[in-house]
């Protein structure tokens, strides 16, 4: 096996694949990256048996063959080589030689026989969606923040892809807040699966400026993301997601429009005083035109800021400031709507113009 490739391309590809190869897995070969050359097509592959990352590497010259090399070592070595250099990698009996100009090193690899074969998506049966990479990135990252990392509740550690009224929606919740984004409208197929948030984060990290479109294929217990030269295959979470649409309140009677930046600022101020009470702050709408955010910390003092806005109905709600700030950061309009009720019901946050994204935060019991 032999390839010739530029340092920046190789380094980028290794960065993409090596992250998941640094695991606590018991099988040593899973810490390796598989380099496979087949008719001038070079792929770098890693897997942790929950997901796999494949990066197709554009090379100038190559000879067929396969080998596996400790992924982290190779990635770090290559990233420290001078930029723009041409790197030559050749393997003979699992000894991998990396040479470029003045630098040369030999890494002990291992034969590719031990490297697990990857599962394949059945192209005929798969449910496939395509969309712009920017929308995808915005959508996923705005929803992923609400996802939980509590492994005892597997359904909540993923992002729920589901179709509702011909719309592909994604949602995540950790029990305290919930985010939903309508991703693609007018889809034909139906889907109802949970993708691990950790896999989604790998997909997000693999995104770069050159990419334009992403292809998502679901099949059996697998999902495959194709973006540019990267392909990520992940298992799906075997659990059922809560019927989250029922959690979104329908009869919240108080709606105020607020400047997003300003609300973030006052929430941050209030949060400073709310540390000892677990970030609990009180939001209150007062007629005719005040929305105030308050917090009290007995030993520190207290904070009371207000924003001017039109108020029709008065009400009060206690929220966790961290969740509120997260939600506001996930929104992007200049003006947002803050929809709540004085009964104990979650607050609904949305962009004023574009209603595709919904974020709800549970109130704290007062």
């Amino acid at each position, binding site marked *: 096996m032999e390839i010739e490739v530029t340092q920046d391309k190789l380094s980028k590809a290794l960065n993409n694949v090596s992250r998941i190869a640094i695991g606590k897995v018991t099988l040593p070969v899973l810490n390796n990256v598989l380099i496979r050359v087949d008719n001038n097509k070079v792929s770098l592959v890693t897997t942790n048996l929950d997901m796999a990352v494949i990066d197709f590497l554009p090379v100038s010259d190559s000879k067929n063959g396969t080998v596996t090399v400790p992924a982290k070592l190779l990635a770090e070595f290559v990233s420290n080589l001078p930029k723009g250099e041409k790197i030559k990698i050749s393997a003979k009996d699992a000894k991998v030689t990396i040479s470029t100009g003045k630098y040369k090193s030999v890494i002990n690899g291992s034969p590719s026989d031990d490297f697990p*074969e990857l599962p394949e998506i059945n192209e005929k049966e798969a449910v496939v969606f395509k969309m712009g990479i920017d929308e995808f990135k915005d959508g996923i990252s705005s929803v992923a923040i609400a996802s939980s990392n509590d492994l005892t509740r597997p359904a909540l550690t993923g992002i729920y892809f589901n179709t509702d009224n011909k719309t592909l929606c994604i949602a995540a919740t950790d029990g305290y807040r919930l985010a939903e984004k309508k991703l693609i409208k007018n889809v034909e197929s139906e889907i109802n699966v949970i993708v691990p948030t950790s896999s989604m984060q790998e997909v997000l990290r693999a995104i770069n400026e050159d990419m334009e479109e992403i292809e998502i294929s679901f099949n059996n217990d697998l999902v495959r993301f194709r973006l540019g030269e990267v392909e990520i295959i992940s298992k799906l979470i075997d659990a059922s997601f*809560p019927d989250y649409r029922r959690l979104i309140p329908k009869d919240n009677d108080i709606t105020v429009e607020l400047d997003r930046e300003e609300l973030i600022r006052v929430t941050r101020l209030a949060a400073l005083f709310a540390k000892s009470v677990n970030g609990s702050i009180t939001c209150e709408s007062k007629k005719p035109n005040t929305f105030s955010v308050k917090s009290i910390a007995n030993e520190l003092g207290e904070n009371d800021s207000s924003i001017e806005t039109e108020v029709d109905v008065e009400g009060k709600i206690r929220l966790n400031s961290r969740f509120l700030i997260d939600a506001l950061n996930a929104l992007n309009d200049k003006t947002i709507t803050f929809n709540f009720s004085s009964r104990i019901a979650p607050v609904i946050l949305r962009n004023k113009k574009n209603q595709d994204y919904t974020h709800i935060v549970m109130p704290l019991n007062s």
Partner: protein
Amino acid sequence: MYNVWKNVLAEVEQKVSAANFSTWFQDTSLISTENGSIIVGVKNSFYVKQLRSKFIDIITDSLIKNGIEVKNIDFEVQSTNKSKVRPREVTPFPDSIKSHTKSIKKTFESKSNNNGLNSKYTLDSFVIGSNNDVAVAAAKSIISSPGTRCNPFFLYGGPGLGKTHLVQAIGNELVKNNPDYKILYTPVSQFYSDFIDAIQNGKGKDFNRKFEKLDCLIIDDFQFIVGKEKSQEEFFNIFNNLYQLNKQIIVTSDRLPSQIKTVDERLASRLTMGGAFDLQLPKFEDKCAILRAKAELIGAEIEPEAIEYIAENVNTNIRDLEGEFSTILLMSEVRGLTPLELIQNGSANINHIRKPRLIPSKQIVEKVAKYYDLPVKEMCSKSRVAHIKTARQVAMYILSKELSLSTTKIANEVGVKDHTTVMHGIKKIESDLKLNFTLRDQIEEIKEKIYG
């Protein structure tokens, strides 16, 4: 099948490296061996190819060695959420929760007795007296025509007065009359923990659906719903569904729904629309009747005088009454004396029940003031405002009944000048108690707070 696969795994373990074994075989299982088509369950698709290409020969060999016919081997991704340990199962009191979830399941799967009902509670063993005759009449009308009159049936009363007994008896009678009748008895605490369980496992919808099929739902100790808004909402939905289908709903609580804090008004009013029935403290004659029935039930011999003595001296509730009764019977068995002899020679001293421990008088005054939301100073002032005066008189009454203090001492404690004022106050409360049930409940609650 489980054992065969264990043997196979043991053999495979010797043939492959430890790393390979723990990576590839750890979460496998044998799903089917029918007609030589073997199906092996694996964690996810990532495992299929590797097992097939690298280990299929070893698996085949081991299976044949274990006497399994092998034509072909297939791998199937199996659901993992069943086999995984759920967090609930390591929390305290796992037994009650587990056994209850089981009972729920069985109720819906079969028509067996696993509906949360305890068959020892029957209507025959429920002693009817002036303290509960109305509630029992209502219960009987439910048994003869469930879901029509008295729906929902709301039963309330202090602890140990037979709420659970009566509602369980209704359930048992309904099942006896019609074995196909689908009933579920669940204390609210279990309802709540099952609900949380269901949500955690992403089965919130199924939870609701399970209740839809019921003909009769019995919820015990409803007052513990306090502070569980989500469960309350869920219960409200279930309640509405069942009610619209004219299914019988039975709820017990230690007080009226409107007196339970944080219970939604909509729910509170709905719970009592079929009528709220209370179980009261039994009177002396009732207590004697209860004890005689109990003696008959367990076949014990006890002198009427002993029964009267116990009935006279236990004034808290029926549970304590029965408890004391059992203790005396047990003692009489151990010591070889008749119950009456025990009582006469003073070994069976019941008075401790009535006064579990001596509470400082100051504390009682404070508790009463707190209950009525008054500062102690204000309560012990000379104010003649009605509610302050009543609070003060309640304090006098409790001091006199619980601590048997002299009226002069009580006068000191509550800040009145004259012991005759105290005598009047106690008399006033005593006469009010006969007519005013709210006051009686209040005093019971205060006592609970004092001793709790």
